[in-house]
């Protein structure tokens, strides 16, 4: 098969389209990365040219190929302290604002979804314990959900490879983990701190009980949803949040492209989305 080449105009056209559909922006430095993946999918779909492949991406009713390409273009890897700037934002800006305005002493509630194998909720727990002075005064509930029961079992066991924990400071690794086989197991204390639950975000019966949260982390999930599902997820989070509650999305995701109900808040460490304080 002749080598597939992606011209500059093709790249620009693809870049605009892909940004509009996913919010993921590739700068010129990523050209090689993008071209290689496009060429791979052109070959796999037997499209023979960029033009044919782009038409498939653009018009395929099921959107299946766009999903396959999105998976390929995104690094679907989770590890402790991934996108740490948002945890910094949580302890430096979000929680101080919430606690200043909170009128009762009920626990602060955080929902992390999808839990995947647990790196995110455990990272949140560690971050609060280590870097948020307010933890001395406030109780916190961390609930973490996923649709996949198998991965939830894995999250509850808390077993991780050295690669998963490579970004953790050494002192935290020593404090919250113990050696287990070739890797590490998160401490029982931390495992006891996070409640893992099975939830299908698209099922109203599943999500109805999820209410009164102060902060929701939903990072790098919505890019895998179609437009309607994204809107439904945005509605679900809206109902799950307290007025003034915060929603943290992944770095390439933007709520303003999904729903107009949230207010974008730019803090020193991150942009997050807030349910208006005056909302019910």
């Amino acid at each position, binding site marked *: 098969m002749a080598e597939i080449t992606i011209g500059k105009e*093709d790249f620009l056209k693809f870049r605009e389209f892909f940004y509009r559909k996913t919010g993921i922006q590739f700068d010129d430095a990523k050209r090689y990365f993008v071209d290689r993946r496009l060429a791979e999918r052109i070959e796999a779909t037997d499209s023979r040219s960029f033009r044919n492949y782009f038409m498939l991406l653009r018009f395929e009713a099921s959107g299946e190929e766009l999903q396959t390409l999105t998976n390929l273009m995104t690094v679907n890897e989770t590890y402790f302290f991934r996108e740490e700037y948002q945890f910094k934002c949580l302890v430096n800006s979000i929680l101080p604002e919430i606690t200043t305005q909170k009128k009762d002493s009920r626990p602060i509630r955080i929902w992390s979804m999808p839990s995947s194998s647990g790196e995110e909720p455990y990272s949140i727990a560690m971050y609060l314990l280590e870097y948020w002075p307010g933890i001395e005064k406030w109780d916190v509930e961390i609930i973490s959900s996923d649709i996949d029961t198998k991965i939830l079992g894995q999250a509850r066991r808390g077993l991780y490879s050295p690669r998963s924990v490579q970004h953790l400071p050494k002192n935290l690794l020593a404090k919250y983990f113990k050696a287990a086989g070739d890797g590490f197991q998160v401490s029982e204390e931390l495992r006891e701190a996070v409640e893992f639950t099975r939830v299908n975000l698209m099922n109203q019966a599943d999500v109805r009980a999820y209410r009164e949260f102060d902060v929701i982390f939903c990072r790098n999930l919505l890019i895998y949803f179609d437009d309607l599902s994204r809107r439904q997820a945005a509605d679900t989070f809206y109902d799950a949040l307290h007025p003034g509650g915060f929603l943290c999305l992944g770095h390439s995701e933007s709520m303003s492209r999904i729903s107009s109900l949230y207010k974008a808040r730019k803090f020193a460490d991150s942009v997050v989305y807030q349910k208006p304080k005056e909302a019910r």
Partner: protein
Amino acid sequence: MPIVKKAPAASRDQDERELQRDCASLVLQLADGDPTTRRWAAKDLVGCPDVSAALIGRLRQERDPSVREIILTALTQRADAQAVAALVECLRSEDVSLRNEAIEAMKTLPDEVAPIMGGLLGDADPDVRIFAVNVLESLRHELVEQWLKEVIERDPHVNVCATAVDLLGEVGTSYSREALEKLKERFPDEPYIRFAADIALKRICSN
């Protein structure tokens, strides 16, 4: 440790709502004074038969954006003829956010929107024609390029053509080449049309 464990189901009953959830009661709750009640009624009405008219009726007078958004999502999920007609009606609204929400909703309904697209692109109001082109931006339908080509060939309004030619820069193929050349001749005094048509042509030629 101050991190306490509490499952959502332990803190709340699965469904502790006091209001009736049958379809007739939900329709009545659409007019409730509390936006949260209206929002949940609209959400739960998705599964009820023949309620598009009730949802549309509420949408026309609803001022709370969170309720409006749920109604639009519900109409999109229902996607029956009445629901699509209601979305089209929103395109004529003076309310910018309602209009944009309707455009976003229509983009997700290619099969339902396709039969009425010709009518929208031929609407007497140029704003409605522009919004119809906006719908085409993400519509997954094989006729998108044909519709756009017809717009740049026939539409007398420069802003409608400018919106269409922008999009042809993305989806245009050699099928639209001649129409793009002619468009520049139709609007010789509009530098933006020339600029956008040249970009579209450049992209088509590079394929």
